[in-house]
Every structure is written in C-alpha cells, then in structure tokens.
C-alpha cells in the first residue's frame, strides 16, 4: 500500500509539470489551430537556459524562473513573428511540417553548441525530501508540482477573467468577428504563442533538478504533451491539467508495477482507450 501511495504521489507530482507543458500546447492549438510539434524543444531550451544560469551565474533553479520566463517570451515572440505567423490559417500539414522542422532544427542547434553530453545542475534541493507518514517526497518534485499548478491556475484565470483571455477566446472562435470588436488578431496570436512557449520553458526550469539536460530530451515531453492534450481534449486547459496528472500517475504506476522501461506503455494504452471511447477527449468539444 505504501509503495502504491508513494508511486501515485510521485506520478502526480511529475504530472503537474506535464500539465504545464500541455497547457502551453493546448493554448496555442486552441487559439490559432496550430499543433506545435516543437513544444518539447522549448522545454529543452528552458532546461538549457536554467542550466546556463546555474552553471555560469550561480542562479538557483527557482530564482531562474523569472529570467528564463522572460527569455522564453522573447523566443516565442521571435519564433511567432518570423515563422509561425506565416502558417496561421493555412492547411494543417503546413504548420505540422514547419513545427516539426523547427523541432529538428532546435535539437541540432543545441547539439552543435553544447554537444550531446548529459548535463546536470548541482543543487542542494536535489537530495532534499519531505518525510511524513512513511512517505518520502523529493523536494524538487513537490516544488515543481506546486509551481506548475500555480502557473496553470494563472493561465486559467487569465483566459477566463481578463480582457486578454477573452480576446484570445474570441480569436479562437472567429478572428473576423474579433477584428470587428477592435481586437488585433496578430497581436493576440503572438501573445498566445509566446505564453505557450513560456509555459514550456518554465516547465523546463522545474524539470532541470530532476532530469538530465541533453539535446534530445524535448522529444520525451513532446510525446507526453500530445497524449495529455488529446486525452484532456484539444484546446481545453482544465483537460490539459487533468490529463497531465492522469498521465503522470499512470506512467509512474506502470514503471513501478510492470517495468521501468515500459512506463510509457501504460500511458499509450489508456490513450488508445480514451480515443476509442471518447475521441473528443475528457473536456473536448464534440465535432461533427
């Protein structure tokens, strides 16, 4: 029982970070209909940014959230204006090719600059753990979970209660109508994309104390984020949150009870099951 509880909680913690990556992906998809196949690579960039801050400037992982967030905002802005803006409203395959290409490009740029070595950030938080009731909660995971949920919460609040969020939802539904209300869709798309990228980058920061940093790590989060988004319903923020937590727990349980190497199998099985039983996802809108 203790092992079960421990495994579930471990999975839940990491699931919070999956949710953060997925929320960025679902925001971008929801607002401009683009599936960003490079989302995982922006997690990777966030991890490298965090590693550089820690290594060269001795900035701890968590104080690094603000500078990395700002860097990712700029990266998201530039990527949108130079690349993504050209494919908004174009057929799906155009955007898929572009973001897939971007993903390969980013991996290889990092490979050229940093090499293929596995890097780690040395922090004291790595070995710290909260112990109670026979459970051991690694502090890095607890912080990652809490911070990730805070950002997901902030994003939900922004979407639901602010003018920016309303404008994003308006552009998502019909950009011509949004224009007639004085909303500049290009501005809103830029911001939505950049915020989606910031979410990925921040997830990267939170993951750095737990994961090795290497050029190909984004692929891992790409796949997970897609499963989470499809599971929760494309474009749904609550869906991405719930999906992230479910996938985190599933992965953790399969890893413990079946085999560590097979951890993703549980995820994919449930994913297939959801597609079979509820193709629009847990919170998805039904499409005719």
């Amino acid at each position, binding site marked *: 029982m203790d092992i079960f509880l421990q495994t579930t909680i471990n999975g839940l913690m990491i699931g919070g970070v999956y949710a953060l990556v997925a929320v960025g992906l679902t925001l971008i998809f929801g607002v401009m209909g683009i599936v960003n196949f490079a989302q995982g690579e922006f997690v990777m960039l966030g991890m490298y940014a965090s590693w550089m801050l820690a290594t060269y400037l001795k900035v701890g992982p968590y104080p690094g959230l603000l500078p990395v967030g700002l860097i990712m905002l700029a990266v998201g802005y530039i990527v949108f204006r130079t690349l993504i803006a050209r494919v908004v409203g174009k057929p799906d395959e155009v955007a898929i090719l572009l973001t897939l290409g971007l993903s390969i490009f980013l991996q290889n740029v990092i490979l050229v600059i940093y090499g293929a070595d596995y890097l780690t950030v040395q922090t004291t938080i790595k070995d710290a753990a909260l112990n109670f009731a026979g459970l051991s909660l690694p502090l890095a995971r607890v912080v990652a979970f809490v911070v990730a949920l805070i950002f997901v919460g902030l994003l939900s609040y922004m979407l639901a209660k602010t*003018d920016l969020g*309303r*404008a994003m*939802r*308006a552009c*998502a*539904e*019909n950009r*011509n*109508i*949004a*224009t*007639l*209300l*004085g*909303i*500049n*869709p290009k501005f809103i798309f830029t911001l939505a994309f950049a915020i989606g990228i910031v979410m990925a980058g921040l997830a990267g920061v939170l993951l750095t104390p737990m994961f090795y940093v290497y050029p190909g790590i984004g692929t891992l989060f790409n796949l997970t984020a897609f499963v989470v988004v499809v599971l929760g319903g494309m474009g749904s923020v609550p869906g991405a949150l719930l999906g992230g937590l479910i996938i985190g727990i599933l992965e953790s349980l399969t890893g413990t009870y079946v085999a560590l190497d097979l951890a993703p199998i549980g995820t994919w099985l449930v994913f297939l099951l959801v597609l079979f039983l509820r193709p629009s996802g847990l919170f998805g809108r039904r499409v005719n």
Partner: protein
Amino acid sequence: MLEIKDLVTGYGDLKVLDGVSLTVEEGETVALVGSNGAGKTTLLQAISGLLPVWSGDITFRGQSLPKLQPHQLPALGIAHIPQGRGILARLSVYDNLMLGGYIAAAKAKRSARMEEMFALFPRLKERREQLAGTLSGGEQQMLAIARALMMYPSFMILDEPSLGLSPLMVETVFKIIADVSQMGVSILIIEQNLVEALHVADRGYVLETGRVVLSGTSAELMGNDKVREAYLGI
C-alpha cells in the same frame, strides 16, 4: 460622415462591386437594398477592411479607411454587426458584452455602460452567464446590438439584422434599430426586407449587380414603380 467613392472590389478575380458611390450623413439612417448577389455584403466587408479595395475610396470623417488596419475601425466609432449577427457563441453573454467594450475609449466606462445595456435588454441580464450560442435568434440579435453599443459607436453598420428571425422578432429588432438611431448613432443598414428597412431609414440606395441603380429618400423609393415591382411584387 461616411463617403464611398467609385468603389471597385471583389473576391479573387471576380469583380463584385463596379463603381459604387454612397454617403451617410451625421445622424442619418441609410438603407442599402438589393437582391441576393447584388454585392451588399461585399460592400460592408470592404468598409470594414475585411476585403481589399481595388480602386476608389472609403472615407469616414475624412479619414481613408482602406489605409487602416481593420481592427482600428472600432476606435474611430464604427461598429459593424455582420450578417448572421456575429456573436461569439462559445463565450458567455457577459464576455461578449465585455469585448464590446474592449477598445480603450470604451473600457473606462464599461461597467456603467453594461448596466445601461441590461436596462435596455433585460433578457440579456437574465442570461448573463449563459453561452451566447444558447440564446434564441432574437436574443442573439439583441446581444449583437448591445455589444456594438458597448463601444459607444457614432456609426453602426447592420448586415441583414432581420435574417432568420420570426416576423414578430423582426418588428422588435427594427424598433431597437430606431431607438439606436434616436441615440444619435448614424446607421447603414443592409436589408432584403425592403419595407422594414425603408421604414426606419431616412434615405436608401438600391444596388443591382454591383452598381447603385436608384437612390433617394425612403418615401421616394417606396413610391418608385420599379422598386415596387421588383421588391414588393405590386
């Protein structure tokens, strides 16, 4: 207030409007009538910048609209209610109204304005938290007009406001349009429902295959034999 001069535009290679000129003066309500395919909606899209102008010009209070970005028009005081009402179905009534007051000039007075709208349209207040897509056709038209009024417009464009509404609701909507006109808002209204349109309008233009074939005061148009024959069947 609004002046359109020799406007030529269309979709792709297809020319839809072939030199249309019309004016709307301050405080005036002008009806644009014509059968399907005459180019009425095309004209409105050109005004709102959703369609590029091939030649000619559209000026609003002396400012050339084709030179502006489409999203800059509301700040000039232009509210455009597109065909099919243009409400955001997946947003609540409240959020739709809030976005009506999105532009900077309207934002400051937004909550007071919303109370005015709720007083004017009590049905919207009852359905404040409902998704706009769940409203009836008539309620959606009220929401579209209320949302447009949220931006304190000086000029309102209405594209077929009676489309798909019951006769009773059509009457209500036209009464609302008359009220909006009373508030001092200039109106350009596009309608197939000629009688209702000319009833609220001061003047009218008849558009046929991309050209203005007839114009005059509402009374003149109503008395015109060609109009009576073509649109009223009498």
